[in-house]
């Protein structure tokens, strides 16, 4: 295909560096525009990214924490629930924005040639910015509950990175499929509901029978959520902060969800690369 040779006079590493820099700049500009678009025309603007998860949290806390009395089992139930909601809100936001991103940028795709990967990636980054804001809310709750920060909280960084890779992979798959089948939008709405209750977000994972815990941990989101809880809420009761290693009785089991994320990422990239040349004519 068309190959730009305008930079042929430069050395190879310099060329690769310039190319990567150029793409990162495109990513930055598009993500910033998407973030602006997301709240354009709304009076409360960015505040919604904080209000929405907090409102959801309040509802679920009243229903499950108070009426169903799950709040009585642990001093940390509310905080545990809030963490689950913030993580799942990021997951939902990023996958939905990612799914619609290619079709929403239709006019750009039909007129300019550029790496299509940038489009769903920038959509997930927009969701990541919102998620960053939500983390502030969690930090406030953590301080309020007098949980002291520990050195091992640094482990949260690789966990959040794993979450991002997982979310981006799903966004890539959904965006590529959505160009072909518009039903994916409806299906994903239902899937997200199903996954919300299949994961130990409103209930502690200790409520599940041991075999169900194992099944649950095959879904990488559960592993990430439980690891985050076990790291941050270390004073909580053990059944509330079981990890994949506890469920399988061996720390080697930690590799299972990570391997699943890696395979998913590779599959997502392969699918996206295969579909990429035809986005312009199908959107």
């Amino acid at each position: 295909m068309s190959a730009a040779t305008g930079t042929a006079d430069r050395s190879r590493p310099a060329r690769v560096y310039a190319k990567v820099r150029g793409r990162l700049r495109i990513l930055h500009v598009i993500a910033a525009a998407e973030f602006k678009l997301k709240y354009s025309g709304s009076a409360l603007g960015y505040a919604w990214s904080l209000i929405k998860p907090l409102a959801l949290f309040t509802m679920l806390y009243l229903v499950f924490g108070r009426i169903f009395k799950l709040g009585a089992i642990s001093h940390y139930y509310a905080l545990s629930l809030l963490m689950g909601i913030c993580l799942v809100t990021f997951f939902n936001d990023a996958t939905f924005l990612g799914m619609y991103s290619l079709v929403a940028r239709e006019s750009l795709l039909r007129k300019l040639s550029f790496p299509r990967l940038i489009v769903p990636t920038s959509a997930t980054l927009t969701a990541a910015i919102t998620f960053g804001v939500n983390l502030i809310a969690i930090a406030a709750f953590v301080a309020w509950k007098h949980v002291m920060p520990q050195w091992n909280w640094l482990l949260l960084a690789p966990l959040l990175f794993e979450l991002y890779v997982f979310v981006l992979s799903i966004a890539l798959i959904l965006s590529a499929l959505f160009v072909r089948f518009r039903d994916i939008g409806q299906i994903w709405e239902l899937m997200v509901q199903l996954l919300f209750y299949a994961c130990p977000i409103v209930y502690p994972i200790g409520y599940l029978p041991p075999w169900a815990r194992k099944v649950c941990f095959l879904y990488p989101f559960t592993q990430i959520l439980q690891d985050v809880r076990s790291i941050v809420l270390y004073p909580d009761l053990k059944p509330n902060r079981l990890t994949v290693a506890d469920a399988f009785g061996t720390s080697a089991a930690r590799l299972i969800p990570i391997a699943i994320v890696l395979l998913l990422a590779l599959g997502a990239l392969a699918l996206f690369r295969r579909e990429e040349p035809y986005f312009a004519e199908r959107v």
Partner: protein
Amino acid sequence: MAGAIEARALTKTFRLPHEQRTTIKEHFLHPFRQIDYDRNEALRDVSFHIDEGEFFSVVGPNGSGKSTLLKILAGIYRTDSGEVRVEGKLSPFIELGVGFNTELTARDNVRINATLLGLSKRELEERYDEIVAFAELERFMDQKLKNFSSGMQVRLAYAIAIQVDFDILLLDEVLAVGDGEFQEKCMATFEEIRAAGKTIVFVSHDLAAVSHFSDRVLYIESGRPVALGSADEVVERYREAHGLALTPF
């Protein structure tokens, strides 16, 4: 040699289902029903070579494959068979624009599109005023693009397309929407670009402009090449084939 294009035996077919089946339910309801596809051969066996610094035009009636051809050159569509080699950087102006988002302000759109076309942050800062001045839209840059007329959008898009670094400029119907003043301005830039030794690939129904500027013209009809040669010769042939008067006015 920056600015040259080599196209060999380009073929592109779009499969257009009679009854578009894009929902999975339709696939489930009629899993075995063979969908009738209209095979729309947008391009068939089109070959040509464009030299560095050449003004090369493509003419043909609506739906003859001109825009498809340009999109293949721009790397937006992939050919089914054949090969295209583009030497140098390309700046596309396709289907009346560079892909604006009408919900964003003109300023944001300039930033996005110029970046996608390869301008660095500093280059954009340096050239922003020139883009706006050329488009003559100084007063409107903080308005959302959906409030712009199509002529205003085309002016902005063209201003961006010529301000990025390119060896080849792809122009699809740039003269179709703007007013007379803008058309004259465009044509003045054609002269400048040509004087700078850059290549222009031009698709237009304005045969007078095609004759005036082009070094060579490709005439395509139903996706097939009919004639390729000097401007006067090929435009004359196209006029005869379609009974077009020498001057449309």
